[in-house]
């Protein structure tokens, strides 16, 4: 078990702790994101955070915190515009995320020289998780996990049957808003480790795999979380041992498992 010694390294410990926390909440939320067919929403937030990263870099404060601010604003903007205009949700997300992405690119272009921080946000980096970042990730993840446990029934009912949710006095608008913001914040938390381009994959791949195997809703949630944790731990180790980008390696592990499960489902009788 010599390879486990890599977790003696402080930066690996931080990456592992951040990864385990994210492996808990990203797939958990992903169950509802896939059920509600909101995968594009997750992708949109991730790309929109580039504007926050750029603002942070230019203004000289934490790009991570700036990205969190942009993520929260993105969620609120989509929520409000969906209700106040007759524009479809995917069109809104498309406009907002490309606009935000464009703003980020323009702002970055105003900065001269190489921007290592930018690259770490784009592709994720186990080296980039500082102690401050870790604290933010752990605190937010704990709060989000507790909220998810408290609202899991309402979120499921909302995703399956809005009319009945309304009849049973579920506060649909408030819960929708909370859900949007939870997804936004969770995605931004994952950007440090997985990167803007790949973070939403950890939202989608674990529940998609679990959905193929789970006999019930409870096992779907457990299966998603376990899959997410396995991908993170295995991906982190491989990325360190093989000197590969962490985010891409984690997602690649997930994609390979997905292909294996999908292939086995096609070959084996159900």
């Amino acid at each position, binding site marked *: 078990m010599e390879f486990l010694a890599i977790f003696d390294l402080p930066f690996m410990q931080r990456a592992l702790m951040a990864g385990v926390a994210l492996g808990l909440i990203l797939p958990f939320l992903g169950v509802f994101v896939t059920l509600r067919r909101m995968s594009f929403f997750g992708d949109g937030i991730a790309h929109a955070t580039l504007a926050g990263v750029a603002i942070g870099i230019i203004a000289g404060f934490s790009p991570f915190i700036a990205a969190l601010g942009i993520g929260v604003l993105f969620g609120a903007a989509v929520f409000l515009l969906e209700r106040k205009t007759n524009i479809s949700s995917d069109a809104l997300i498309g406009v907002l995320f490309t606009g935000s992405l464009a703003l980020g690119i323009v702002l970055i272009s105003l900065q001269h020289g190489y921007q290592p921080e930018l690259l770490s946000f784009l592709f994720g980096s186990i080296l980039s998780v500082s102690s401050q970042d870790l604290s933010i990730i752990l605190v937010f993840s704990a709060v989000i996990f507790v909220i998810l446990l408290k609202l899991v*029934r309402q979120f499921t009912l909302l995703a399956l049957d809005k009319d009945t949710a309304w*009849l*049973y006095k579920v506060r649909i608008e408030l819960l929708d808003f909370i859900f949007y913001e939870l997804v936004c914040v969770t995605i931004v938390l994952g950007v440090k480790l997985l990167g803007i381009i790949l973070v939403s994959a950890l939202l989608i791949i674990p529940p998609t795999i679990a959905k193929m195997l789970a006999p019930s809703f409870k096992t*779907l949630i457990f299966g998603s979380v376990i899959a997410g944790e396995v991908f993170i731990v295995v991906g982190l180790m491989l990325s360190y041992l093989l000197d590969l980008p962490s985010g891409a390696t984690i997602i690649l592990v997930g994609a390979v498992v997905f292909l294996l499960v999908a292939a086995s489902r096609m070959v084996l009788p159900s």
Partner: protein
Amino acid sequence: MQDRNAVQAEHLWLSFGSDEPILQDVSFSIPEGSITAIIGPNGSGKTTLLKVLLGFLSPQKGKVWVLGKTPQQARGEVAYVPQRFTFDKTFPITVLEFLQLSHPHCSKEKIAQYLGHLSIAETLPMKLGSLSGGQLQRVLIERSMLGDPKVLFLDEPSAGIDIAGAQTFYELVSHLHREHGSTVVMVSHELDVVANYADLVLCLNRKLVCQGRPEQVLTSDSLKELYGKEAALYHHRHQEG
């Protein structure tokens, strides 16, 4: 409103955009404990009316009371079985989990007992997406009855079920109605069902064309006015049969 009315609607008007109003000055009262059927041709506003009564849609003019309250206030005391329950059939949720979503405090035993009454006890551990149309409708009925609702709204609940299944389904609704004393308001295309089970019939074609007991309303003249001559012919043949 009167105390003994479960549902009361007064001068309801509703239009979508600039189209002709789908509900035009619709007023009626539904007595507590009755089974009321709303009939009418396609596009006559039946489902829209049901959605207004449930509070899913707000009328531009007029008022609705359900159990003496606004539809919003009556939530929790009413239940609804939709015409078609659409969901991702690949989503792994068992019947038990599905029922406990809307009734989290209901024990597994109580749910199993209800399912037994509906002759679908074996579906409890099954995935919702694997049920047949008839089984799913029964599960939806069970979900609506688990909360002991005072008013049960059904929107063409036997759509997609074969004739025998539909017959059993309405017998079940009637049985549950007698057992629980709930008021039932259902949209139906099936005039046989209406004649057999309803106490009150509302004939809707954007306006309330007629209302009364089935034997008063299901006459050739009324049906001709509501549906056109084909329905009147159907009714005539049915009576002869």
